[in-house]
């Protein structure tokens, strides 16, 4: 299963709508980095509105995507994290420190625009 990545100007927009099995998560990581490279994207919004569960493995890969994108020069914002997912992550002691977040896709884009265009 491949997660579609949309390009909008200097940004990539991704809305995760599928069950995240391990292979899909790893493919996603690779696809995002390749797309940043191809398009010269400066910012990425990953929307998690439809994601009902984030375990330690998915959290680690998401954190890695943020760090790797940063290395490549793109800033990632995670948006739409469900209350139950946020509570579960904190219960597990996973804080995703230093990861930019916003309430929804629109606010995520605005955040990127503010930070990247000043």
């Amino acid at each position, binding site marked *: 299963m491949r997660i579609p990545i949309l390009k909008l100007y200097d940004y990539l927009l991704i809305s995760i709508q599928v*069950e995240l*099995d*391990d*292979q899909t998560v790893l493919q996603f990581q690779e696809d995002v980095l390749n797309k940043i490279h191809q398009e010269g994207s400066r910012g990425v919004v990953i929307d998690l509105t439809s994601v*009902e*569960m*984030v*375990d*330690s*493995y998915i*959290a*680690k890969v998401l954190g890695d995507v943020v760090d790797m994108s940063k290395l490549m020069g793109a800033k990632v914002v995670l948006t739409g994290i*469900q*209350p*139950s*997912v946020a*509570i*579960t992550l904190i*219960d*597990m*002691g*996973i804080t995703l420190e230093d990861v930019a977040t916003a309430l929804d896709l629109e606010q995520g884009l605005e955040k990127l625009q503010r930070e990247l265009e000043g």
Partner: protein
Amino acid sequence: MQVQTRVDIHSEWGIVAARQAGRKLAKEIGFGSVDQARITTAISELARNIYLYANQGEISIEEVASAGKRGMKVVASDRGPGIKDVRSVMEDGFTTSGGLGAGLPGVKRLMDDFDIDSEEEEGTTIISIKWLR
């Protein structure tokens, strides 16, 4: 009632199957969305550990009742290498695989009851229960 569902874990697809079965049963028992996420996440952690460290095993889930309380029991069992030092794997951040080391301590916090029984060379059984409030 009191039917037990077993999911074999011998590939990463088993992880997905186990958590889907877990969410379905949690919903049927009447858990709210936050507890559904807690239970599903705990199952995902246990199933992944089986796949990663023991290659294969099983997750079984069932509704339980005790002293007027209802809940959901999740048992993860494998005949893998076992855990040498149970105390250290229960510490946040302990990992032998470059993970976050959040799995087992996380499951303990996500569920209400948690019991781990592991013997080197014999395997590991982890029994956990979430009670309906």
